């Protein structure tokens, strides 16, 4: 913090970059910091240069950034998540490397790869990024892409709001990214518990970066939740009764409802902390009647449902793939629906288990401990239901099934540690330890990450028209499973041995073997990340051999497989009339599944608009200005947001009309193509003979 705040530049000056630190003192910590900033700078320059050289700015703006199409918005969300995932995994690797070199003594200064404050920034950004800017965009992106197609809708209920949500999420991610180069990030972990993160103990821009990233992306997520909920309630195709919806839509509905109710709690706790920091309020300060226990309560009122927001879409994906890749109907549809909804509701009643150790009475702890265990019942039922789905099936060991298997075997261990932690008497011991770190990675990596990667692999052809390379997909999956096992199972042991989480140093030499194993796991994770990107690249290069223009490469049973791959902007030439739960499966069992609709009509689609982009731009300027106390810019950009909304309100917006003739032409071309392609059985699913037209004699759904 510099002494005077400039009226023009606020607290910004040339001293805030990691390069200044590097010049002041060259050591491994400042080199890592400056290296990370350089990767950001060079990456941005390379990106801009590529877009300019390839003349992609125009197409990027016209076809993507201004598009209100949920499918494209979904893809952009996932692209954002994958970029952030790369940073998150690299940070994890740096932290594991640091701890493998961090053995010290009580008398000596902390040693190791990075300085303690740097380490604290790493675990704070790692957590923030992985939860809010990897897991959330992954699941929101996947739902955006899949949900309307499965419901038989052309778009979300509020396409422009959807665009704004994407913009706001990106602003949050951009703030966390730019903190690499300009200034520092907070050191209070992803939960940023006050009073440590109050202005007294954490002056400077660090916590503010977190606050504004969370507040702005949180508003985006709230809007997303509303959008999903309204889409599911109001935009289903005729005949798509609730109990005919694919399971993925059901879990999306749970997610939407939880977002609507949970995100406001995060908004409130962050806004209160911001008031404490900016305006001297006393919500969570030590003095003057502040009470940090309220922060813990409000934060986890969001935080616990959030965990299930993250995992339920993955449960939806697992429901889809376990059925499709087994060539068998999903077992226990109603059970799964009831289980998903129970999880959504019960998840709001367990938040106190995040702080059993705050000193409340045993009775309160018992109530919340038991509630926590109860949530394990529907979760267990779901796992058994998927096993029953695969039982007496014909299971193809594709990449998504490798992820599913990894999930089965690892998630139950996470469930076991969850049940252990749900016991207040044991939680007193392992709370705040690496046991807890191992637990939540054990549920989030096999649950969310594997689920989302499986989903990406499954629906990728629908988005881009070609399959992902199966061999590389499986290699990636195996690496992620192995990486998890080696990185996090040792942390269970370390936690039981008494190692607290977030430790920049430790003194027990017995920890070291486990640290090395975990370090090896982190190397595997890096390999998995590389392999993931390589899968995309190599599949792109072989896109002709992997192309599936027929649109149904896995012989699926839900509506989205009835359209071409990639799906056209309007998705369905005519809105389908749904007759059954496994509508596309039933259609394929009837005569001529790819018959053309009797007539085509004009299709109204929302027209492109830069609205989301402009709001995101204004929000970013506002947040950045608030972080650095550049008040004039903050005021201007804050006023710009309602200004933009009011301006759009004044305009009469005409939808984009796609002529019936155009739809007919494209659709006939697709039907023609399907007729000319030869159908393949599942035995040839992974070969280049798979052009997306399945042999309908094999059972689907």
């Amino acid at each position, binding site marked *: 913090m510099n002494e005077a705040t400039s009226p023009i530049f606020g607290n910004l000056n040339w001293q805030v970059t990691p390069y200044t630190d590097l010049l002041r003192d060259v050591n491994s910590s400042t080199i890592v910091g400056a290296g990370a900033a350089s990767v950001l700078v060079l990456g941005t320059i390379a990106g801009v240069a590529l877009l300019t050289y390839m003349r992609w700015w125009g197409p990027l703006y016209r076809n993507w950034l201004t598009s209100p199409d949920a499918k494209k918005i979904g893809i952009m969300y996932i692209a954002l998540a994958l970029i952030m995932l790369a940073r998150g995994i690299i940070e994890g690797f740096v932290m594991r490397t640091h701890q493998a070199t961090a053995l010290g003594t009580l008398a000596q200064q902390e040693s190791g790869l990075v300085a303690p404050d740097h380490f604290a920034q790493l675990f704070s950004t790692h957590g923030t990024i992985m939860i809010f800017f990897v897991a959330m965009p992954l699941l929101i992106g996947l739902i955006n892409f899949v949900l309307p197609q499965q419901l038989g809708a052309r778009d979300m209920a509020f396409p422009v709001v959807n665009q704004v949500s994407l913009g706001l999420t990106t602003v949050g991610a951009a703030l966390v990214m730019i903190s690499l180069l300009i200034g520092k990030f907070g050191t209070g972990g992803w939960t940023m518990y006050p009073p440590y993160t109050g202005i007294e103990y954490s002056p400077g821009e660090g916590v503010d970066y977190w606050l504004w990233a969370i507040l702005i992306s949180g508003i985006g997520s709230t809007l997303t939740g509303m959008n999903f909920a309204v889409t599911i309630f109001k935009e289903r195709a005729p005949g798509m009764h609730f109990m005919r919806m694919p399971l993925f839509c059901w879990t999306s509905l749970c997610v939407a409802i939880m977002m609507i109710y949970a995100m406001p709690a995060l908004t409130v706790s962050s806004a209160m902390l911001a008031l404490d920091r900016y305006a001297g309020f006393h919500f969570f300060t030590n003095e003057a009647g502040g009470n940090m226990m309220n922060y813990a309560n409000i934060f986890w009122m969001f935080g616990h449902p959030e965990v299930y927001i993250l995992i339920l879409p993955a449960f939806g994906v697992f429901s889809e793939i376990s059925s499709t890749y087994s060539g068998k109907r999903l*077992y226990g549809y109603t059970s799964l629906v009831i289980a998903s909804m129970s999880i959504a509701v019960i998840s709001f009643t367990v938040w106190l288990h995040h702080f059993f150790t705050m000193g409340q009475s045993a009775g309160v*702890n018992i109530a919340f401990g038991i509630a926590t265990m109860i949530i394990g019942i529907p979760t267990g039922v779901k796992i058994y239901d998927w096993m029953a789905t695969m039982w007496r099936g014909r299971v193809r060991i594709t990449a998504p099934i490798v992820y599913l298997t990894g999930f*089965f075997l690892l998630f139950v261990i996470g469930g076991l540690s969850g049940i252990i932690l749900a016991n207040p008497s044991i939680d007193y011991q392992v709370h705040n330890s690496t046991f807890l770190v191992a637990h939540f990675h054990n549920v989030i990596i096999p649950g969310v990450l594997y689920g989302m990667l499986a989903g990406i692999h499954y629906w990728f052809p629908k988005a881009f028209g070609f399959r992902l390379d199966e061999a590389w997909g499986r290699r990636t999956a195996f690496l992620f499973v192995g990486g998890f096992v080696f990185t996090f199972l040792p942390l269970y042991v370390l936690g*039981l041995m008494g190692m607290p989480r*977030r430790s920049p140093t430790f003194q027990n030499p017995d920890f070291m073997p486990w640290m090395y194993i975990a370090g090896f796991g982190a190397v595997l994770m890096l390999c998995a990340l590389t392999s993931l990107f390589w899968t995309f690249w190599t599949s792109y290069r072989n896109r002709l051999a992997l192309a599936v223009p027929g649109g149904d490469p896995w012989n699926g049973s839900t509506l989205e497989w009835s359209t071409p791959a990639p799906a056209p902007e309007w998705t369905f030439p005519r809105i389908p009339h749904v007759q059954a739960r496994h509508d596309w499966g039933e259609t394929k069992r009837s005569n001529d599944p790819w018959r053309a609709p009797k007539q085509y009509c004009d299709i109204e689609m929302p027209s492109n608009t830069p609205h989301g982009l402009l709001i995101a731009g204004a929000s970013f300027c506002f947040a950045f200005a608030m972080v650095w106390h550049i008040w004039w810019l903050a005021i201007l950009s804050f006023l710009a947001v309602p200004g933009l909304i009011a301006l759009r309100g004044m305009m009469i917006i005409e939808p984009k009309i796609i002529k019936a003739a155009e739809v007919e032409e494209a659709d006939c071309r697709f039907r023609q193509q399907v007729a000319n392609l030869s159908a393949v059985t599942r035995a040839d699913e992974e070969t280049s003979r798979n052009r997306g037209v399945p042999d309908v004699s094999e059972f689907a759904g």
Partner: protein
Amino acid sequence: MVEAKWIARCFLFASIAGSASGLCAAEPMRESFLQPMGPVADEQFNHLLRVIGITMVVILPVLVGVPLILWRYRYSAPLGEYTPRWEFSKKLEWVLWGVPVLVVVVLASWLWYSTQKLDPYEPLGPEPLQVQAIGLDWKWVFIYPDEGIATVNELALPVGRPVELTLTTDTVMQSLLISSLTGQIYAMPGMTTKLNFAATRPGVAEGENTQFNGTSFGRQKFTVRAMTPTDYATWTAGGGGGLLLDEATYTILRRQTVLAEARQDLGLEGTAQPIRMRATEDGILERIVAKYHTSGRRAHGWGGTGRPSDNSVQTAE
């Protein structure tokens, strides 16, 4: 049940094989409740094994069943029959819901029992030894009000007598854990919390703060010595030594330092040896709690309430 416990025990001991070598040393520093030194940690360890054992009922079917299903029903060379349209069975539903429900009922009963039993606010016996703990940035001050002794980063206890530790902090929120004796509880400014426990065998254990609170968080450890009653009597008879825990000393301790640095600030020799002080003033902990109950402005006395700045370091010296 018994077998499950034994399997779990073997698994756990195998998994801490690394620390087993440490057990052979002359005076091992116990850091884990897997090496319990008292009834609370002992019961927590037992309960851990119990929970693992019971939960295996629902977990083992998955660990065994998934590889079997994948093998038996793989597309390339399936062994079992193929029932693609089978999607529901009432009997199976009863099992799928029933077994987890039963397991949770059993687990919940045990949870209720053990949480009641291990309530940290319940004294383990009559007349527990009263000790107070004040969390500071990167060290702990322990006060023995009845003995007139205070220490930094050392907690001495007589074996066999229950202990009641009253906690607060004079900085951000912290969490005190002595794993081989008892679980942790948060210490918060302006508030007190309690831990009740006892040591049943002599030994040395490590205690620590587990709630991240800044740069030197990793070095905020303290030594717990469970002594025989005679040793403890000798320890208390030794008194507090030359240093007096008064406002001036406390203000120096309150700076953001680790023990080794605090020793230097107080002009003491040595590196990371605990500090012993006389604590003759009454109600030190109460005064520190009360500092936070004033309106708006900073409190004065006993180091005030804000973050100790670098300036105060210089003025104090």
